[in-house]
C-alpha cells in the first residue's frame, strides 16, 4: 500500500535536489539563496511526510 504515495514523495525530492543545485549556481543575493534553500528543505520535508503518511 505504501507504494501508492511513493511517486508523490519522489516528486517532491525530485524538485528539492535541482533546487539545491540551482541555488548554488544561480542565486545572486542572500535573500534569493535563503528562499531557494529554504524551499528545497521544505520540499525534502514534505516528501518525507508523504512517504511516511498512513494509508
Amino acid at each position, binding site marked *: 500500500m505504501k507504494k*501508492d504515495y511513493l511517486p*508523490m514523495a519522489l516528486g517532491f525530492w525530485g524538485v528539492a535536489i535541482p533546487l539545491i543545485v540551482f541555488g548554488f*549556481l544561480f542565486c*545572486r543575493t542572500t*535573500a534569493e539563496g535563503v*528562499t531557494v534553500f529554504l524551499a528545497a528543505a521544505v520540499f525534502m520535508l514534505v516528501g518525507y511526510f508523504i512517504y511516511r503518511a498512513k494509508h
Partner: protein
Amino acid sequence: MKLTPADWIFIAWYFVLSIGIGLYYSKKAGKSISEYFLSGRSLPWWLLGTSMVATTFSSDTPLAVTGIVIKDGVSGNWFWWNFMLGGALTILFFAHLWRRAGVMTEVEFIDIRYSGKPARFLRGFKALYLGVPVSCITFGWVTLAMVKIIQIAFRTSGLTAMTVCLGLTIFYTTLSGLWGVVATDMLLFGVAMLGSIVLSVVSVEKAGGIGAIVAHMKTLLAQSGHDYLSVFPSLGQAIPLAFFVALFVQWWAVYYPGAEPGGGGWIAQRMLAARDSKHAVKGTLWFNIAHYVIRPWPWILTALAAMVVFPELVTAPVGTMEAAYPRMIGFLPAGITGIVIASLFAAFMSTIESIVNLAGSYLLNDFYRPFIRKDASEKHYVLVSRLLVILVALLGAGFSYVLGSVRMGWQLIMELSGGIGLVLLLRWYWWRVSAWSEIAALSSSGAMAVYLQRFPDSPLVKALAAWLEKAGFKVDTWGVDIILIVAFTTVVWLTVTFLTAPDDKGKLLSFYQKVRPGGFWGPIARLNGRRYKLNAYPFLGWALALFMILCFLLGVGKLVFMNWAQGAGYIGAGAVAAFLLSKAINKIDWEGQP
C-alpha cells in the same frame, strides 16, 4: 525575456516528474469508474485538500490578484476573500453530508434527493450544462490566461508551448483519472507556490525592500488619499456596491467554480473521494486555510513591488496592471526564471486536469450511464470516460479561441448562475425544495442574466441604481446586476416551490435516513420516527473558522511587513480559534458516518 539552457532543464525536468507521477496511477485508475473518478473513495484529508487548492490556483489567479492590488489596494481582494464565508459554511454544514450521501458526482445528488420526471430531466440537463458549456468556459479562460502570460513573458504566440503542455496534461489525465490528478496536484501546488514565493522575494528586492514599498505606499496615500496597504476598505466614504455585494450576497448566491455554495464541482468531487466524513471535513478545512492564508501574500507582495518598479501602473488600464506579474519575471536571474515559468505551467495544468476529469464524470455518470447505456461493464465505462475526457479537452481548447477575454469567461458563469446558491444550500436542510425549485432557479437566473446583457439600460436597472446611489453606495453595473439576478431568482424559485407538489415521500425518507441532515424536515422526520437535529456546534464552528482564517490571513500579512508582535498576536489568536474549532467539529453529529 530569453530562457537559458538551465531554465529549460528545470522546466523539462518538472514535466518529466509530473507526467511520471500521473502515469504511475493509470493502471489503478482503469479498474473501475469509482477508481477513475473518485480514487476508490480512499483519499486522506491532506491529499484531497491540497488537490482542491491546487485546482483553484490557476495561471490567471496571480495576474488577477496583481490587477486587483494595483487598482484597489490589498482590500480589493475582498472581491474573492468574501468566498471564505461560503467556504467555512461548506466545512461545517456540508462536507460530512456530501460524503455521507455517497454519490459519485454533484449531479447524482439530484437522483437521491428528488423524484419523478423533473428530477430525471434536471440530472440530464445539469450533466450536459456543467459538463460542456461551464467546463469549456472555465477551460477556455484558464487557457487564454496562460497564452497571455506566454505572450507577455516571451513575446511569441505561445501556440507551440501551449499545445505541448495541453497535450501532455490531457495524456496523463486521460489515463490516470482522479488518482493521477490528485497525486500530481500535490507536486503542482508545491511548485506553483515555490514560483510565486521566489518571484515575490526577487520583486521586493528589486523594489528596494519592504521599507521602500511601505514608503512608496505612504506617498501614494498622501497624493491620492487611497491606502493601498489597508486590508479593509476605508470607511467614511460611499461604500462601493461591488464590495457590499461581495460581502453580503455573492458567497451564498453565486455558483462560482471552486466556491460553489455548499460545495460543488471539484470541491464536491474531492469530498466524495474522501476516506470518510472526517477526512472530508478536515480536507475542506485545510483547503480553506491554504486558499485564503497561504496563497495570496506572495502575489500581493509582487503587485506592490511592481507599483514601485513601474510607478505608471497606478493609472494604467486593468490589462496593463495584470501584466505587471509576468513583467516582474524579467528581473529573475537565469536558472531561477525556469522555476517560475514551471510554476505557472503547474498552476495551469492542475486546473486543466481537474476540469476535464470532472466534466468527464458528469457526462459519463449522469448522462451516458443513465440515459444512453445502462448496464455495460466497468471496463466499457472506463473506456468511455477516457474518450469523454479527450472530447471535453478538445472542446475546451476550441472554446479558448472564441472567448474574448478572461474576465468575460468568469463573468458569464457568475451571471448565468447568479441566483441559484440559496436553493443549493437549502436542498440539504429543507424537505420542501424539489427538482422544480432547482429548474426554476436555473432558468430564471439565466433568463435574467440574458435580459440584463440585452437591456443594460432598462428602467429597472436605472431605478435600482438610482435608489442605491441615494442610499449611499458607489454604484457599479456588476453589483446592480447581481442584486437583480438574485432577487428575481429567489422570488421565482420560492414561488414555484410552493406552487408545485413536494417530492415523493419515500424518496425524501430514504434521503433523510441516508444523509441525516437535520433542519426543516418536519413531515419526513415524523415519518422516520426519529428527528435528526442540527445542533449549535456547526454555527459556532462557522464563526470560529472565519475568525481563524481571518486571524491567520492578517497575521501572515503583518509578518510579511515585519510587524512581528502584531503578526504573532494574530497567529496566536488564530491558533486558539483553531483549537476551539477542532472541539466544535468533534461535536458534529458523526453517528452512522461512512
